[in-house]
């Protein structure tokens, strides 16, 4: 019974297994699959965990980036505000009614002299120019000169200081001390960064020459169109020149703050530009010079008349210019020095002139160094006839120079001057000069 029952039971189990598809082998196979699937699920869960971690990291990075972006935006806004404020400030400064600018030039040189009583020496000078404008109505201009003296002291001078009313397109009124409008050299060419040579021409200097230097007075000047070209003019009245207390210095053509003879000087210049690169000018001045009383005694006045012609040709690399000035002083009674009594002196005529040519080598070469070189030659003469003491400075001079332009207004000059005096020992002079105009 039991055997048969077991058999029936087993058969029934097998039948059931077959009917249901269940088999021990299948069970075993299914367990493996389950395990594999579980492993796969575990792997996936692990990956999901990693992804979540990465997501968290990305969120943190995004947050930091947002923070940085916000800070950058704040900085940019702040910078923009600062820039706007600076722009407003700069605009306000630019639109201010009173504007000023410091210009001028500095000079340093070494002079080697062969002949005469002067010694070799270094020298320096500083010429600040203050320019102040009130809109386009008025300008005030002042130039000072500070230079070294032989004894170590400092010489301080006012070159010019004047108020200018820009009345119309063609007229400016000037009052104060101004550069004499007579000729061209003193008015426009004497600054060391403009003068092509480190010397003034013979006769165009402060001592012994007859070039009108400065005046204290009142002037009207301006320019106007003549067709397609322009002309300019100056007309002035001033305190006038005076006799120097040193006879060999002749007439002092520097403006002074007083009028010793209560007789004003009148003069002016008219200039033309017939071609774009050519200018010519004609000048004149009439004045009276008072005799100096010296130790005491009566003196007389003498008429002093001055005429001047100037020209300039500036085309391309060429700079060719010249000027002639003649002055005639009537006979008068005067003393020189405080110890002398007045005595008559004969009438005197001074003639000074110069002609110079300069050529910038940039016209011949594209080499940067050689293109900055500029050879210059000048011939000048001072010739006085009349009172013997006034003739002491008579001189024929030729000067040869070579300039190197570091920039439009920064120059090193080397020049040799041969000075042939009529009544003094001749000189050979070598000068090296640096000048910076700003």
């Amino acid at each position: 019974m039991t055997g048969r029952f077991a058999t029936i039971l087993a058969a029934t189990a097998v039948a059931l297994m077959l009917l249901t598809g269940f088999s021990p082998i299948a069970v075993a196979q299914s367990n493996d699959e389950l395990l594999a699937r579980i492993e796969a699920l575990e792997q996936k869960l692990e990956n999901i965990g990693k992804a979540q971690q990465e997501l968290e990291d990305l969120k943190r990075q995004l947050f930091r980036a947002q923070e940085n972006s916000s800070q950058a935006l704040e900085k940019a806004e702040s910078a923009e505000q600062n820039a706007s404020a600076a722009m407003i400030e700069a605009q306000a400064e630019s639109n201010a009614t009173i504007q000023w600018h410091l210009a001028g030039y500095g000079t340093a040189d070494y002079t080697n002299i062969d002949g005469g009583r002067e010694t070799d020496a270094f020298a320096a000078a500083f010429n600040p120019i203050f320019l102040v404008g009130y809109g386009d109505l008025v300008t005030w201009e002042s130039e000072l000169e500070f230079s070294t003296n032989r004894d170590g002291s400092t010489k301080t001078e006012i070159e010019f200081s004047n108020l200018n009313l820009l009345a119309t397109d063609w007229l400016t009124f000037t009052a104060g001390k101004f550069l004499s409008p007579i000729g061209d050299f003193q008015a426009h060419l004497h600054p060391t960064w403009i003068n092509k040579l480190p010397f003034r021409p013979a006769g165009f200097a402060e001592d012994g020459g007859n070039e009108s230097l400065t005046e204290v007075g009142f002037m009207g000047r301006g320019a106007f169109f003549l067709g397609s070209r322009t002309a300019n003019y100056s007309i002035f009245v001033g305190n006038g020149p005076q006799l120097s207390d040193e006879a060999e210095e002749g007439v002092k053509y520097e403006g002074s703050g007083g009028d010793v003879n209560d007789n004003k000087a009148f003069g002016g210049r008219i200039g033309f530009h017939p071609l774009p690169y050519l200018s010519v000018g004609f000048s004149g001045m009439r004045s009276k010079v008072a005799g100096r009383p010296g130790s005491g005694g009566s003196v007389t006045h003498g008429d002093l008349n001055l005429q001047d012609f100037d020209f300039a040709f500036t085309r391309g690399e060429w700079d060719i210019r010249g000027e002639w000035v003649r002055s005639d002083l009537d006979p008068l009674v005067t003393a020189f020095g405080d110890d002398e009594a007045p005595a008559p002196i004969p009438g005197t005529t001074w003639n000074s002139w110069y002609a110079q040519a300069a050529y910038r080598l940039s016209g011949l070469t594209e080499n940067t160094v050689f293109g900055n070189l500029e050879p210059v030659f000048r011939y000048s003469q001072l010739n006085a006839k009349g009172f013997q003491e006034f003739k002491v400075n008579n001189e024929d001079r030729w000067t040869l120079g070579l300039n190197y332009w570091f920039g439009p207004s920064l120059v090193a000059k080397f020049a040799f001057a041969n000075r042939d005096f009529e009544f003094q020992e001749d000189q050979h002079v070598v000068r090296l000069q640096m000048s910076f105009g700003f």
Partner: protein
Amino acid sequence: MKATMIKRTAILAFVLMGVLALPALSAGAGQSAVPLRNTATDAAARGAKAWSENCNRCHNYRNPKETSDKNWHVIANHMRVLAKFPGQTVSDILAFLQASDNSGFGGMGTPAPGSTTVPSQGLSGEEIYNQTCVACHGGNGTGLLPGVPNFTRENGPLARSDDELLLHIANGYQSPGSPMAMPPKGGNAALKNSDLRAVLSYIRESFGKPQH
């Protein structure tokens, strides 16, 4: 007698000048009697010509980039007084200097953007050259100012490629040996790239051989 006549003539001249100046002086206290005018559309172009003709009579040409627009304004008035230029000439030169210094910011009287420059619409290369370039480069392309190159030279500037030359024109360029640089677009900031190509074509046709 003669001296008296001269004095009377001088006094009369001063009085006459004062009378003629009265209308301008009566413009109002604190206002500019002669405001520098930058309203003409070709002021900078006129200024380039005036600058090339006048600003080397005494000293070397000064580089527009040497100082700011504000300082140029003060300096221009100083030159008007000392060197004696008509007010309009000074106004034009100032417009050229302020347009050429790339400061991008003006001083007193600075014009609104584009108001001082040559309008490019409808202008040929030749017209642009004659308005903006001729003052320095000359009608024959050989150069009027120290250091300005000669376009007609065999191995001169026109031997370079169009791209290189257009870059020089647009950004400014200093030729070797030249004391100062050409300002960007010759100082005429309103010129567009098409204008620069047009003027370069004109320069090649007139002074050199074409290149591509």
